[in-house]
């Protein structure tokens, strides 16, 4: 055993030892801080959006400002929060630990991705100075090439860099999972979080480069005018949509697969029961990853895409629902006859289940051709994607609570953790269920003002947003409180059986002095609770 005070946080000191670190755990923490900062910024934009929508006409900002607000809200939330959130922050920290490895395969590349990320993020935020972007996060041509504000170029460049950051992280994870598994850890002995990350990495490798070329083409289109996407020069704007969604549809599963991986961990560990049907959950991740490449056209049903393509894409869209359903039912089956402790991570896990079920099920209205035509580009879609992406954020926060003791070596307040979760979820339902109703009544999205009959619903929605923000601030408060006053955490506070619980909290610089023997990561039967250390110890 290493000396308890020598952990990765105290291993070396000084700001330089952080900025130039090759330790995956420190890089994970740097990601975490950056990503939470981005989340806060985009969340503030969201609150400004909701304030503007309090009244039908102008409330606080002009139409142009509003357009810049929702664009940056969407773009930052997606590219700086949900996509990198779980893989880059939690994944970086947890993946080598769960593998029983000392680090990821390419630590230098890992640090490089982080700086790409920071640089890309900075470019996106700096775009505000040069006039902002008002294209929507989808950058549709010819608006983005002809009309939009000057800020598009820095934003596009920023997202391009973020894309490569994401690619390199994925590459690192694939190689790590292939080559660095601990002796004896077969593919089906990996924790399911790693399956989620692996499936995600496949998509990052295969889809993100297409985003790269799309953005590059868009920049070239705007600067030089190559006429691939700009109809003014003989290009085809619908082709741009194909390019964009070929990445951006898989991207929504890049967001959700790691979240599902987290949920598999949370549900099993906090129900103190072996995960139900490990193999189906593992394979369904891969199935979702593969199917997700065939459905991008469902974002283009009214764009002038041909009826034939509409039919193909609609049919294929539904294929993704099956592996998702498999996961949902398996999680329920895991809870069945479990020994469920309603800890904060478990609260977030069940919040994920109930919210994501709605998000996914409303995807059925969108995937079905007849109903899509009516609700596409309305608040119905806005509500759908918040009901799918905010749960990803929920899983992220749940995972953060779950691994927080490991990361910081301190416990947090369970009571306030649960209160924060409850306030957030209640606010969430109010904010976005109202938007489903508005959507079916024809309220178009990206509108800074609206017809008076929508006023009541919009105001309810704004009130809900305030509650969401309150819940999140409570959550943030528990984390800060824990850093300052938290009780020391045991190595294994929850009784999990995967490797990360078998090294001290916080882990030493090298993770494991002795790699533990690989076993079933969900067989928790020989761990026993010891109240005096607030944690589980393996039966001897």
């Amino acid at each position: 055993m290493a000396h308890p005070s020598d952990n990765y946080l105290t291993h070396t000191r000084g700001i330089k030892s952080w900025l130039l670190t090759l330790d995956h755990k420190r890089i994970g923490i740097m990601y975490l801080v950056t990503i939470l900062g981005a989340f806060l910024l985009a969340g503030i934009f969201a609150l400004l959006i909701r304030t503007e929508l309090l009244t039908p006409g102008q409330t606080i900002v002009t139409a142009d400002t509003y357009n810049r607000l929702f664009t940056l809200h969407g773009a930052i939330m997606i590219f700086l929060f949900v996509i990198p959130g779980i893989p880059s922050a939690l994944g970086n920290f947890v993946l080598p630990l769960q593998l029983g490895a000392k680090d990821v395969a390419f630590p230098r590349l890992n640090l490089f991705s982080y700086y790409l990320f920071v640089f890309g993020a900075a470019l996106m935020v700096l775009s505000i100075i040069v006039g902002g972007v008002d294209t929507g996060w989808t950058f549709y041509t010819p608006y983005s090439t002809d009309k939009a504000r000057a800020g598009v170029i820095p934003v596009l460049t920023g997202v391009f860099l973020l894309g490569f950051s994401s690619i390199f992280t994925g590459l690192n994870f694939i190689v790590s999972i292939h080559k660095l598994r601990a002796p004896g850890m077969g593919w089906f002995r990996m924790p399911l979080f790693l399956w989620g990350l692996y499936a995600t990495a496949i998509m990052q490798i295969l889809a993100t480069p297409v985003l790269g070329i799309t953005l590059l083409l868009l920049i070239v289109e705007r600067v030089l005018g190559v006429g691939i996407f700009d109809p003014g020069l003989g290009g085809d704007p619908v082709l741009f949509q194909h390019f964009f969604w070929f990445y951006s549809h898989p991207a929504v599963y890049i967001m959700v697969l790691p979240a599902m991986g987290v949920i598999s961990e949370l549900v099993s560990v906090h129900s103190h029961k072996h995960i139900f049907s490990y193999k189906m959950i593992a394979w369904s991740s891969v199935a979702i990853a593969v199917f997700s490449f065939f459905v991008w056209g469902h974002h283009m049903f009214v764009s002038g895409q041909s009826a034939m393509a509409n039919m193909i894409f609609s049919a294929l869209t539904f294929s993704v629902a099956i592996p998702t359903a498999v996961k949902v039912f398996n999680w329920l089956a895991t809870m069945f006859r479990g020994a469920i402790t309603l800890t904060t991570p478990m609260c977030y896990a069940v919040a994920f289940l109930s919210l994501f079920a709605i998000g996914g099920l409303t995807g059925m209205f969108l995937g079905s051709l007849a109903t899509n035509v009516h609700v596409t580009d309305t608040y119905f879609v806005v509500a759908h994607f918040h009901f799918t992406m905010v749960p990803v954020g929920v899983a992220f926060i749940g995972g953060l609570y779950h691994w927080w003791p490991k990361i910081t070596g301190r416990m947090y307040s369970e009571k306030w953790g649960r209160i924060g979760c409850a306030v957030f979820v209640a606010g969430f339902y109010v904010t976005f269920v109202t938007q489903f109703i508005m959507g079916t009544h024809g309220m178009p999205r990206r509108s800074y003002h609206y017809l008076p009959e929508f006023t009541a619903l919009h105001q309810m929605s704004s009130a809900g947003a305030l509650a969401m923000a309150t819940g999140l601030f409570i959550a943030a408060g528990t984390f800060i409180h824990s850093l300052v006053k938290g009780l020391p955490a045991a190595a294994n506070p929850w009784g999990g059986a995967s490797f990360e619980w078998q090294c001290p909290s916080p882990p030493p610089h090298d993770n494991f002095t002795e790699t533990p023997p690989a076993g079933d990561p969900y067989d928790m039967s020989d761990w026993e609770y010891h109240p005096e250390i607030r944690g589980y110890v393996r039966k001897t």
Partner: protein
Amino acid sequence: MNEKASHSAARPHVVPLRVLLAVWGALMVFTALTVAATEVDLGAFNLFIALGIATAKASLVLLYFMHLRYDKPFNAVVFICALLFVAIFISLVLVDTTQYQPELIPGYAPELLK
């Protein structure tokens, strides 16, 4: 790998110079061939011939210059997956754009005249 790495089998495959030369020669011949093939008018076939020859050349480079033939099979899987997904991308986009072609306004490019 998960199994205790066997250090003895670590030696890389050294491709004999003879093979490299032969591949180089074949590539040159194929290049000449593909240029020659354009001189004959075979209609749509020309495209297939050109792509066929290019694929043959690419395979030679992959198998021998890039050692794929002697490498871990998974590396080949990675490469083939990449090609497969490019193929999916192109074919589904093509299915759509060829269908809506008649709706486009021919020669629409107003900005060129500015």
